């Protein structure tokens, strides 16, 4: 890497950081103002007999009587120090709630994402590798399915088939409650039960995960499949393929070692951009499958006007999505510097 490259690279990082800060400012201000624009006082709403004196006392305790600018600064300070206050409704610490619900959503999203990548990559590679009309049709079908069928409806159908008709899968929740859950280490029941070596619990967790993960996998599968397929159809790839064949490599080695590597950079970008969609989809999937994750928690908090949950968790999730996009952009750049050009460079 020469100096010119390094400078360009650093410039790129700087630009991303500046953008990140801008997004933080916009998002936090939007949330802050949205909360102050709530019709009706959220503090009075939670009291059974909200006489003005009590409401005033409560506002003082929560620091809502201070000037608006001070409140905004305090909000920023508390957000970054991780002191996210307590839910007005349950009195629980928001941070503890997030530590509780977020791993559940992450587990579900990652399961859906990995399943989606596996399905997407396999379909694309086999469709192109075998040049099979049927596989091509399937990949087309997959691409359309992921874009045209609402995820929650698939979820409902999956419940009818997998749970009511076949009876194979539980109709909701994350774990079989007649068992004691494995000791909490990572927050992911799959990993925790494996760490504890408790197979029965691992299967119980897998069993609960199957239906929601399949639903969630459709969108990334469709995205990955179409991007990878487009890449593999590139005439340059065709030349590379022939060259590799001429060297006497078997098809498995050609496809899975060489071509996939070339094709993976746009796939990584797609993974980054579909992470947000995945979280959005997780909100719906969690609702259908009673999955105790962050999505349901957020929706409930917004409808209940639960101040501290809304202003911290929503901001956190937004920044997280943005962060993941930046990181995957960066990764894609590292994997294949030529194939990726970020939006701003155009």
């Amino acid at each position, binding site marked *: 890497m020469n100096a010119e490259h390094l400078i360009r690279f650093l410039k790129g990082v700087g630009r991303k950081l500046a953008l990140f800060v801008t997004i933080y400012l916009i998002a936090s201000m939007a949330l802050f103002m949205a909360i102050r624009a709530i019709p009706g006082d959220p503090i009075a*709403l939670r009291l*059974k007999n909200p006489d003005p004196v009590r409401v005033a006392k409560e506002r003082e305790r929560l620091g809502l009587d201070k000037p608006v600018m001070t409140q905004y600064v305090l909000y920023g300070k508390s957000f970054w120090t991780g002191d996210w206050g307590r839910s007005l409704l349950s*009195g629980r610490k928001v941070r503890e709630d997030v530590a509780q619900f977020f791993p559940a959503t992450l587990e579900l999203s990652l399961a859906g994402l990995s399943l989606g990548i596996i399905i997407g990559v396999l379909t694309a590679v086999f469709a192109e590798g075998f040049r099979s009309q049927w596989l091509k049709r399937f990949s087309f079908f997959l691409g359309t399915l992921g874009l045209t069928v609402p995820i929650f409806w698939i979820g409902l159908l999956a419940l009818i088939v997998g749970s009511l008709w076949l009876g194979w899968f539980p109709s909701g929740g994350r774990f079989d409650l007649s068992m004691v859950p494995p000791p909490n280490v990572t927050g992911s029941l799959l990993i925790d039960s494996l760490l504890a070596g408790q197979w029965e619990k691992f299967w119980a967790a*897998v069993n609960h995960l199957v239906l929601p993960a399949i639903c969630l996998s459709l969108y990334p599968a469709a995205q990955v499949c179409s991007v990878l397929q487009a890449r593999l159809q590139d005439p340059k790839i065709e030349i590379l393929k022939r060259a590799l064949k001429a060297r006497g490599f078997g098809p498995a080695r050609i496809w899975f070692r060489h071509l996939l590597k070339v094709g993976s950079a746009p796939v990584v970008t797609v993974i980054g951009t579909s992470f947000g969609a995945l979280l959005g989809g997780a909100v719906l999937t969690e609702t259908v499958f009673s999955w105790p994750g962050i999505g349901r928690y957020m929706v409930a908090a917004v409808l209940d006007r639960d101040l501290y949950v809304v202003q911290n968790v929503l901001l956190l999730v937004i920044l997280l999505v943005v962060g993941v996009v930046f990181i995957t952009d960066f990764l894609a750049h590292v994997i294949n510097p030529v194939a990726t050009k970020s939006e701003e460079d155009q």
Partner: protein
Amino acid sequence: MFSLFRRFVTVFLPLSLLLLGGSGCSPKELSSKRPETLIFARGSDAQKLDPADVDDGESVNTISQICEGLVRFKSGTLEIEPSLAESYEISENGLRYTFHLREGVRFHDGTALTAEAALFSFHRQMDESHPGHLPEANFQYWNYLYQEIKEVRAEGEMTVVFELSEPNSSLLYSLAIFPAFLVSPNALETYGEEFQRHPVGTGPYRFLNWTPNQAIVMEKNPDYWDVANAPKFERLVMKVVPENSVRLLELKSGHVHGIDGLQPAELAALESDPRFTVYQRPGMNVGYLTYNLQDPRFTSREVRLAIAMAIDRKGLAKIALDGTGRAADYPIPPGFLGEPKKGNPIPYDPERAREILAAHPDILAAPIKLQVMSQPRQYFPDPVKAASFIRSELEKVGLTVTIEAKDFKSHLNSLRNFEFELGLIGWMGDNGDTDNFLSIFFGSWATIKGAASNYAFYKNDEMDAYLLGARRETDMAKRQELYEKCLALWRRDLPIVPLVHSNNIVVTRSELTGFELQLIGDLRLGPVGWKAE
């Protein structure tokens, strides 16, 4: 080609295992053995587990397994029987209540139950400087059901005395419900800030852990004092399953053993199914329609009567509650003190209603806004369905109605601030006393803007006098007379239209025994066990 196939298998093997995981534990397997864990599923999670600072059914139903009060309702009735107090006396003038505590009872943390320990649960609510008077807690019931209590003190080791500022004939009942449950005084020290989420009581099950939005787990209290109702399960789990349909499926597949919040339409099929037992009895609640008397269009008594007569309450109970409730004639549940024995005060008469309304062009001129909450409450399992029904009834007599569904909190907020025209709402009784309904609905002291429970803004000195008189009166016959007068005034002025009393419904697997529905709607799982084989 072979290696390609091999790779295919290595990738697909985990996938197929994943799918096989599904057949790992089939429902039949679960129900054939008798688990030592009882799982009960409901629609939402508890909010807090501090008896003095909760008001939602899910929290109360969890606390009821863990904590107990000095007295309790005899199972399935509104009769008071001793609980943690072995006996009690009430002084002649009704100003002093004396409770003698049971010997040998211990809280789950080992603290012995003494008068001193019992005081903690009351003092922390009364005394703002008490360390247990947490700043984030509201103690909303204290000012509202127990406001006459002037002092609570210990007399000797095992006697607790309550001194009242004026008599309140419903206080003993109020002492049997959750805000008066006893918690261990040492729990505050042990759990600090988390005290409100870690209840320590004397009940049949003790708190183990709580995974929010998922489950609250309790375990057997092996030293439970009430041997006849000793817990039968090693563990008790209160599970959250938000969707009614999914919850029922969980019951059918054997993943849970009991549920509440049933989709009423499912009831008929369940009742004939030998695998399940359906418990159903009228709940202590009333769902009603309230007028806003500050709205000039509803100032006329005649208009209010006409609207009331236009609604087929029996049909409403049948459709909106799918037959799992009954039409309400009075603003108090059936069988309550003061309920007249005869007659239907508001007949269903759309013809007459149409005639009356024809004489009031102002009410017909513009659409009326009917406001309703979108989440189910006990009195309206499907409030929006009820609103849809009422809209079609009112439109039949010539009115035009628009429905505005809001989430419960916002709905309540606009009712409390009198920012509505017609409102659909209800009340769940707390302590089984008539005062707990009529004072809430009609007391002029309940019309403070922002905190009102008398949403109609009904003010009548005569009504106030009767209500306060009945509250102080200890003679049941005289109280009855006063409440009858209140109801006569209500019928004359009609600030609210009672619509339905909905049933409490719990469904369990039929192998379970010992369950009984409680009148005040709480859940007692302590005595529940498997039937002998």
